[in-house]
């Protein structure tokens, strides 16, 4: 009696498991396949890339590091790498300097308009770069005097990092019990000391998250980078790799893919670790 229903149940489990496995395999395939071609093109010989008889998933000629070598020795890949991380670093600094105090104020202090200001900042999410890039270009060139410069990106990227990071940080500050701060004040600390010694240390994970977010977001942009920095020495990876390794009709496929792989994968890995916070930053308006 007890054996009888167990068999169909086990069978069902096996069947469900197989279906789930197949579904996962399908998703993994479509997600990873373009990256697989980057990996392959990085290491195979040029001949394998253009020989239509060679299986595009695999290789025939011996593998080599020639594409990596070429990228570092004959292109400005290192300059673009440097520019990308330099821009991202300063964007993080500016974003945190703007957002940490503001997030504390909006989470903790009671003052007229605080709530509306929060909502207003959230609404700036919904102004995409495409609405701003024309006037921003004028502002960057005429007002900030930064024509064709990576510093223009430093000035402009916080327009999209600030709303995210502010919402994230407000959430983090709200999670710290106000009693802790009050206890510190009762124990004789002034407000500044209470914030500096008690609240900020507890928000460090949140601040780090916001920092990494500003970092990865600034590495995703293409439009501003394309608009504001057109000379080779000022380009970042996202614009340098796809625009400088194609000369007319001539595609440096090996180097293109190598560049995409070396530039993109670190960003993807870091982004992935903090993806949940990204979602929280977007859905934050609901809390």
């Amino acid at each position, binding site marked *: 009696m007890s054996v009888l229903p167990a068999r169909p149940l086990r069978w069902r489990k096996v069947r469900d498991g197989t279906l789930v496995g197949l579904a996962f395999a399908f998703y993994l395939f479509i997600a990873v396949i373009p990256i697989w071609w980057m990996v392959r093109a990085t290491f195979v010989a040029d001949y394998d890339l253009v020989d239509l008889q060679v299986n595009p998933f695999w290789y025939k000629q011996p593998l080599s590091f020639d594409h990596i070598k070429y990228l570092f020795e004959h292109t400005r890949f290192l300059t673009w790498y440097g520019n990308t991380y330099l821009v991202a670093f300063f964007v993080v600094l500016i974003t945190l300097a703007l957002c940490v105090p503001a997030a504390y104020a909006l989470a903790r*202090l009671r003052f007229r308009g605080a709530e509306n*200001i929060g909502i207003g900042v959230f609404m700036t999410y919904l102004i995409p770069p*495409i609405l701003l890039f024309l*006037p921003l270009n004028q502002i960057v060139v005429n007002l900030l005097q930064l024509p064709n410069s990576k510093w223009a990106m430093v000035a402009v990227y916080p327009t999209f990092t600030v709303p995210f990071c502010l919402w994230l940080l407000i959430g983090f500050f709200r999670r710290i019990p106000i009693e802790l701060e009050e206890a510190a004040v009762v124990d004789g600390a002034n407000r500044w000391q209470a914030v500096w010694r008690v609240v900020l240390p507890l928000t460090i994970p949140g601040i780090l998250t916001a920092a990494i977010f500003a970092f990865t977001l600034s590495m995703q942009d293409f439009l501003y980078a394309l608009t504001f920095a057109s000379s080779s020495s000022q380009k970042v990876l*996202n614009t340098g790799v796809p625009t400088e390794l194609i000369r007319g009709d001539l595609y440096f496929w090996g180097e293109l893919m190598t560049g995409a792989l070396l530039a993109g994968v670190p960003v993807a*890995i870091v982004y992935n670790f903090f993806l949940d916070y990204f*979602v929280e930053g977007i859905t934050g308006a609901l809390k």
Partner: protein
Amino acid sequence: MVVCLSDVGTATRAVPSERGRGTRLPRIRTEALLGYGLISPVLVYILVLVAYPFFLSIYFSVSNVTVAGGDQSFVGLAHYQELLGDEVFQKAVWNSLSFTVLAEVGKAVLGIGLAFLLLRHMPGKKIIRGFLMLPWTLPISLSLLSWRWMFDPQFSTINWAIAQLHLMNPPYPDWRGDALWGYLGILIVNIWRGFPFSAVIVLAGLTSIPSDIYDAAKVDGAGFFRTWHYVITPMIAPIIFIGLIFDVTFTLGDLTIVYLLTNGGPGYTTQIVPLLAFQTGIQGGNLSTGAAMALIFFPFLFVAVVFFLRLLYRRQAVT
């Protein structure tokens, strides 16, 4: 000690309601002052680099401004009127809208499926998720290079697979030189790029539902579709709406995919509004027309967002 501290904490909060009003008031005033002080840097930044350019772009769109200066005269809605009669712009609007709608449908289908898969417990889920998120986490301008390879007229690996599987007779699709295949290619990349994000948003919604609600639905005899329709959908609607609004503004405003795949061609068959605005405003130097193009969807999105947020707040007020 701990008990003592928390007692003090509640005591200080209780005081003003009894007799501390007089001493509390000036503190509130300094609190407001401190508050404004702390938020002013963000406000100044947003005013100068978001609000000001935004209104500047509206100003551009109703006057004659070019990179060279233009005569700066006020022309009202003339640019918009001109655009509405412009064949290329009409095509771009149509493409933008249809791309966005079709891509959202594709992303929703793939994303919901993936979200339910990711709900399951399994070993190594974090790592698998990391791989599944690659389309979203990789910078799009870089992953597009791989798509160019897949869509290359000579070396297209997709066409290679089509040939190997005998799915089609030659001539094989010209993914970057043909109007229809180009359109399809752009759509595929759009969906590919966005489905992990849709999955994550749906997942965030699903995990926000307490599990006893599922159990209750089960006990009441609700099957999958009933649970989906009567239990899950209403509960995750707010998160989904926010995700959707974010994704629609993002997709409508993004030019990277089209710029790097077909550049709007052949002719202007795969042209979209943001790319046209970029070509007109930056490459052509015609700031006024470019700004008018970029702004064309904004009023509709704005109304949708305001409507939705009001709905959301009313809902929260009820519950």
